[in-house]
């Protein structure tokens, strides 16, 4: 049998996967960077190689619609992620108590998470429906509201309503991660703190909080990265409307590149989004590394 040096074997084994990754990730990425410096348009092949330098980028950064979409995204991210963290941690604390039916509730917690985003979006669109929606029915029947509302048709409300749908689907992830961390806390520690004279609040801050802060911050960054890329739920529920009030950066990129077919400038938008994501991902990696050091 032929024996290669270890490094050669490693390269040999990596080659098939590397070829695939270069083919489906590397090449399109390089091509995207290239297009972002051109005036490429899907409908006119002649434009593909028309070099425009940094014009696309300058245009992007001066485009109020794009800047609005960044603002919308920031809104969406901060509302949905902060609510997901707060609700997730509270639910995890509840599910960490002993009570009848706890196992069933823990199992139910997975359901929203298991739902495909598109199905979740369609379900909430039905709930918010202006004519036959469950939310309108509920609020009018219990007397909180006099007449039906068009929840997704109101520019002041639509982004919040989409955020609610996203929160419902994603808080269980935070809850599960937190619950896992809570279960690693030794009962002795809680009891020791009790005997040391700590009340419930002090026990939370001295024992529980330090044990869950690291995993919860990982969940926070993961959810931020995900929420920043939000696309499918917007596509299904509002298509960015009304009046662009739910248009997020991903949706803006999609519109520019595929609806208006301006591949060149779409690519420049996409790369700006990638850059922002990269910062978030770097934060995530830094957090993971920090946790590895303290553990």
């Amino acid at each position, binding site marked *: 049998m032929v024996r290669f040096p270890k490094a050669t074997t490693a390269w040999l084994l990596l080659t098939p996967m590397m070829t695939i990754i270069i083919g489906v990730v590397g090449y399109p990425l390089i091509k995207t960077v290239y297009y972002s410096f051109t005036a490429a348009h899907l409908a006119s092949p002649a434009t593909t190689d028309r070099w425009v330098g940094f014009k696309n980028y300058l245009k992007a950064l001066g485009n109020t619609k794009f800047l609005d979409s960044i603002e919308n995204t920031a809104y969406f991210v901060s509302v949905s992620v902060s609510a997901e963290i707060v609700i997730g941690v509270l639910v995890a604390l509840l599910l960490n108590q002993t009570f009848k039916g706890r196992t069933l509730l823990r199992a139910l917690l997975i359901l929203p998470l298991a739902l495909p985003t598109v199905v979740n979006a369609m379900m909430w669109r039905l709930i918010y429906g202006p004519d036959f929606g469950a939310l309108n029915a509920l609020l009018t029947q219990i007397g909180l509201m006099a007449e039906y509302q068009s929840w997704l048709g109101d520019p002041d409300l639509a982004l919040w309503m989409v955020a609610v749908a996203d929160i419902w689907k994603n808080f269980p992830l935070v809850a599960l991660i937190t619950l896992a961390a809570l279960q690693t806390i030794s009962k*002795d520690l809680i009891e*020791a703190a009790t005997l040391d004279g*700590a009340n419930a609040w002090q026990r939370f801050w*001295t024992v529980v909080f330090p044990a869950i802060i690291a995993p919860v911050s990982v969940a926070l960054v993961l959810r931020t990265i995900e929420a920043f890329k939000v696309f499918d739920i917007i596509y299904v529920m509002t298509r960015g409307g009304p009046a662009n009030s739910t248009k997020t950066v991903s949706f803006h990129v999609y519109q520019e590149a595929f609806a208006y077919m301006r591949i060149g400038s779409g690519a420049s938008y996409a790369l700006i989004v990638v850059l922002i994501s990269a910062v978030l991902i770097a934060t995530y990696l830094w957090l993971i590394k920090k946790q590895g050091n303290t553990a």
Partner: protein
Amino acid sequence: MTALSLKNINKSFGEIQVIRDINLDIKPGEFVVFVGPSGCGKSTLLRMIAGLEEISSGEFWIQDRRADQLPASERDIAMVFQSYALYPHMTLAENIGFPLRLGNQPKEIIEKKVQEIASILRLEKFLDRKPGQISGGQRQRVAIGRALARDPKVILLDEPLSNLDAALRLEMRIELAKLHKQLEATMIYVTHDQVEAMTLADRIVILNNGEIAQVGSPLDLYTKPANTFVAEFIGSPKMNLFPASITEGHPGETKINLIGSSSNLMVNKDIEPNNELHLGIRPEHMTPSDEGAIKGIVTSTEQLGSDTYIYFDSETKEQAVARLNGITAIRTGEKISFDASQEHYHLFSPGGDRIN
């Protein structure tokens, strides 16, 4: 005056009663050890005193205050856990000072107290470290330090040495005994190790199946075990129990027959005739003698250097053991006979209670 007082204490988990009718007074400054096999209820009893487990019925008093409904945080009782239960993200100084910080003590007082405790426990050099960066023995000392910080009325210790290796266990045992003398604190210590109980306790409480089998000083329990359970639990190797009967007696003299054996033993006492007695003799009180009443065939020996344990099948069909000083030449398969002087006889009724 009593530090703690338990009156008719019971505890049930659902249908299962784990603690039955415990009555016990603990004096200030006393070192009391709860000992018993696993599942005897000793840890549950300790947790009830701490306030971590509810008392199903009975009264619990701390000094002259009724305390069975008092929350754990208000009992002024500290506890050292088997797992040490140190706060992993706090330094040792913060761990020790934690109960004082919760009590809103001024910073200087906390620092002074932490320094004082650290010097008693030889931890000064490690105060800036976190629990993950020190050894098991040091963690143990920090856990004790945290318990001392508040000058609590009582310190509870739940099998505090069982996570340490044998050498460290011995060292910490001696240190604990010293610490108790130095601080004159009331301590309740739970263990399943009778050696720890014998060496540390002012008073031992032996628990069996949730009941107190006997309370007394270590030597009381050794010399006058109240029943066969205590007799076998205290002492190593455990006491030999031979089936015996008493059929006749003259005033001032009773003849004990070992069942299955032709030999008799005499005691200068009046004891009621009974066919189902147990005669207990500790291994260390068996002396080899050619005419000895206890006969058997050696099945194995253990040479410890300082002692030799001789295991033998006695005529009464019981496995028995004798502990002889030093090194002996007795071998497996040999016939052997032992005697014991009558002050070392322990007689137990059929129900297991002591009768002499």
